[in-house]
């Protein structure tokens, strides 16, 4: 390996002051004799210094409105599900006396734990998708009266995800309007988020391809999340809670989405 190559490879550690004294002296000797490498070393140190100098201010960025509230809500949802889990434990511990009973209790507890674990996972899924629902409608909802073409959305989703999703179109019978779609982030993947308006209320359909979940229906952060799976895809319908007139539209979306 040439001396220049060796020097260039060591420049980050040299700039960071992480080399052993003899290594550092060897680099310094080369830099004194080699102007091109010296320029690279100068730039490396300067780039580093600019960043280190500004590091504390770079890490300060005013939070956008709503993010703090959504994260607080996620924390509350997480705490709630953990509390539910912790409530289970003393129950079986105090009854773990006779061996036979202990076995029965253990089996029961295991199934209850898995059930709760699923609920916990559903609660977090629902909380995050509800947060996404609120954010997307706040930032991206089109003006009132604007409708979207389901075929366009299906085409875009097919191009982006390589998977055909049937997007329930607007339906006058159920007073449901398809108003748009965007890509939302959940887990490590991007999740199609289809946006509707029903009787003036914001309604979201999230599509999680490649996952199967047991059906669930839960309320979190003031919104109802209905979870179901079909043909290897999980759907989550998020609607405002405490609104009675969305049942027809919900049934329509759950029937049509695939």
């Amino acid at each position, binding site marked *: 390996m040439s001396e220049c190559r060796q020097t260039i490879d060591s420049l980050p550690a040299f700039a960071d002051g992480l080399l052993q004294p003899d290594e550092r002296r060897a680099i310094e000797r080369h830099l004194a004799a080699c102007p091109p490498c010296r320029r690279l070393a100068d730039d490396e140190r300067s780039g580093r210094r600019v960043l280190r100098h500004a590091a504390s201010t770079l890490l300060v960025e005013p939070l956008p409105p709503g993010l703090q509230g959504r994260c607080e809500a996620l924390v509350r949802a997480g705490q709630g599900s953990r509390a539910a889990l912790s409530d289970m434990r003393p129950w079986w511990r105090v009854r773990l006396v006779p061996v036979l009973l202990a076995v029965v209790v253990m089996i029961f507890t295991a199934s209850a734990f898995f059930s709760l674990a699923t609920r916990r996972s559903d609660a977090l899924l629902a909380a995050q998708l509800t947060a996404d629902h609120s954010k997307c409608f706040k930032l*991206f909802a089109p003006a009132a009266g604007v409708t979207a073409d389901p075929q366009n959305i299906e085409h875009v989703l097919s191009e982006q995800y390589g998977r055909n999703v049937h997007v329930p179109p607007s339906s006058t019978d159920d007073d449901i309007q398809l108003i748009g779609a965007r890509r939302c982030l959940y887990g490590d993947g991007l999740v199609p988020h289809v946006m509707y308006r029903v009787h003036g209320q914001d309604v979201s359909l999230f599509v999680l391809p490649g996952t199967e979940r047991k059906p669930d229906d839960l309320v979190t952060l003031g919104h109802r999340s209905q979870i179901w799976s079909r043909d290897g895809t999980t759907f989550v319908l998020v609607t405002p809670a405490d609104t009675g007139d969305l049942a027809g539209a919900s049934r329509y979306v759950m029937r049509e989405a695939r």
Partner: protein
Amino acid sequence: MFRRRQPADADTFGAEILRYLEPLYATALRLTRNRADAEDLVQDTVVKALRFSDRFERGTNLRAWLSTILHNTWRNRLRDAGREAAAIEVDSSLVEEAEATADDSQRAETPEQLLLRNTLDADLRAALDELPDIFRQAVWLRDVEEFSYAEIAKMLDVPIGTVMSRISRGRRLLLDQLRKTKATA
């Protein structure tokens, strides 16, 4: 048997996470260069932190742990979106071009003098945003968040040599970008 955080601990843990929202958002914004995606990334980080709270070792650095989750998540998104490969392809030519254009006329002002003129934060943010994703993430992790090479290598799932090379090129590209900004100012 599974380990479990005490309920009081859970409250504290959640409150502690919320304390770090601002630096997390600042990091997410630099990585994504987009406010909506940055919000998504922060939310996703909070959800994962809550989901995997049992894996956090008490007494260790929570901010670093949260940051690791955030960077991991972002790396996976780059990978899924195919942007990581694209950034690597651009790597060599971009660096060579940058180094070739850094001629003597642009060097009338030495790097140290350039620094002494106090780069504006807005200029620095804009220059960072111009870097390809992999270099921007590498210099941010090292010089802003002060992770070690080994920690960064683990986070990004690449060898330490690759981490060092990305940091090095990122720093030089950043300086070149700042020079361009000042030349056009």
